[in-house]
């Protein structure tokens, strides 16, 4: 394991030079990172995929005294705007009443850390880098749309956590001797196409010392891709093919059964 990491570390060294330290007074600690795969191909039998995110802290001087080094890894799927609705009871029937529009919410969001977020990340840094789940969802101006608008964002988080689309994995980043770290994130089976952004942060005393971004390209391939493209580029032809398929299958079953009986 360690040997593998060291090898991968060596491979990703040239990229480390490109990573600029964020603040001049902490530049003696930077991160070098890599992913087990930067492409996920969705085939017909796709059932999800495990991504190994690893990295190392590079420093010229010994680790500084004071607060411990902490690591946060986020994986974020493509965002989209949403409408959230709340049901209320009117005349004995549960009806959609209040609604708010969320400007953008990620389709997938996983936060993996070395410790509880409030302890390792200060509020100002969270606001700046939009790390916690609440920050990743952009819901500006919803308080004017409905009463208790906070409940809507909470409900969004709750529903998507139940669907395994949003995750908080506290203490799931393994950190060795304040230098090597790894996090495992499994992408679920119910994801769509797009560029998934991986962000890695190292922190001390609630402050981000260095950040690096990586991308995972999730794409449909083969039959999945052909069908998806046809449906979007030639919708009428796609519809007619769907009908033909239905007609042929209907006829074939009828003919087949007649043949079986005679």
């Amino acid at each position, binding site marked *: 394991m360690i040997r593998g990491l060291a090898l991968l570390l060596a491979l990703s060294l040239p990229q480390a030079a490109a990573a600029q330290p964020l603040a001049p007074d902490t530049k003696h600690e930077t991160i070098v990172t890599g992913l087990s795969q930067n492409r996920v191909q*969705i*085939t*017909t*039998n*796709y*059932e*999800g995929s495990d991504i190994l995110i690893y990295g190392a802290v590079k420093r010229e001087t010994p680790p500084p005294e004071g607060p411990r080094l902490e690591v946060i890894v986020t994986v974020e799927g493509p965002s*989209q*705007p*949403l*409408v*959230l*609705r*709340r*049901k*209320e009871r009117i005349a*004995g*029937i*549960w*009806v*959609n009443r209040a609604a708010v*529009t969320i400007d953008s919410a990620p389709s997938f969001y996983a936060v993996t850390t070395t410790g509880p977020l409030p302890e390792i990340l200060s509020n100002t840094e969270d606001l700046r880098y939009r790390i916690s789940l609440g920050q990743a969802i952009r819901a500006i101006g919803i308080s004017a749309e409905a009463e208790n608008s906070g*409940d*809507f964002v909470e*409900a*969004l988080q709750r*529903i*998507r956590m139940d669907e395994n689309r949003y995750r908080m994995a506290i203490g799931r980043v393994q950190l060795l001797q304040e230098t090597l770290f790894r996090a495992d994130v499994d992408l679920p*089976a*119910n*994801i*769509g196409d797009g560029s998934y952004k991986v962000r890695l942060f190292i922190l001390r005393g609630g402050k981000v010392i260095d950040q690096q971004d990586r991308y995972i390209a999730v794409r*449909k391939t083969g*039959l*999945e*891709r052909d*069908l*998806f493209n046809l*449906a*979007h580029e030639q*919708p*009428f032809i*796609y*519809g*007619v*093919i*769907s*009908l033909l*398929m*239905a*007609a042929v*299958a*209907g*006829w*074939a*079953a*009828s*003919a087949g*059964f*007649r043949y079986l009986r005679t």
Partner: protein
Amino acid sequence: MQIYLPIAEVSINAFLLLGLGGVVGFLSGMFGVGGGFLITPLLLFIGVPPGVAVATGANQVVASSISGMLVQMKRRGVDFRMGWVLLVGGLLGSFIGVRVFAWMTALGQIDLFVQLSYVLFLGLIGGMMFVESLRSLIRSRRQGVALPVKRAHIHTWVHRLPLKMKFRVSGLYISLIPPVLIGALVGFLSAIMGVGGGFILVPAMIYLLGMPTRVVVGTSLFQIIFTTSFTTVMHAVNSQTVDMLLALLLIVGGVVGAQIGAQISVRLQAEQLRILLALLVLAVCFKIALDLLLQPSELFSITPLVLP
């Protein structure tokens, strides 16, 4: 065996989908209903997004209806002339229905509207059918012979309407106006509720038009093929929500199920068949009514916003 569906963007067990298609196809072949009012809620239940469930459900109904109709055709159980007349009304009705649907969607109350229509029509038709078929079943038991269905053969104002036409297969000589109106009502409801409309059409043909039960199932399937084909292409063009892979699995299960269902329906008495269909319709109605009346476990719902 998990399979990833390209349009629905979820991964679902292939055998589950085959089985689901089979069960719905079986009922479709047996009762002459498309099964749309069953397949859509079932797909939603296993995690298919609502838009994909409605559109792909319609595509599956096309296949099982064709399969079922071919069996009926062999037995001269399709009144094509009546089918075409119903269809003219149906296209008219669905044209209006699509507009009302768009209007209700803009108001944000389409879910409620659809659910209320389900409860109202399923409850009304299921209840009427249940009472009627139970009565005739008891009557036939008591007298020891199966009575023919009470058909609307008494001459009423309906028979004085103009534009009379002969329907030889059904043995009817009636005005075109009632079938066109019934077709229009079914088309309207199927556009709004996303179903073929067989559960409305079957009892309407028996009780309102007075058609013999023998041709009702086949003729209903004939009309359903066209309405659901129309719906499928409309959804494919407007919202790209037809999932061909999902449809294929449902269809393979569905056509086999429809064949078995059609064979069994031949062996059952007409009263028994109607009582079973009535119970099925009432069960779905009851389930939807409960959803409206009981407090849902999750009050909030998420709808992706489609960018204009």
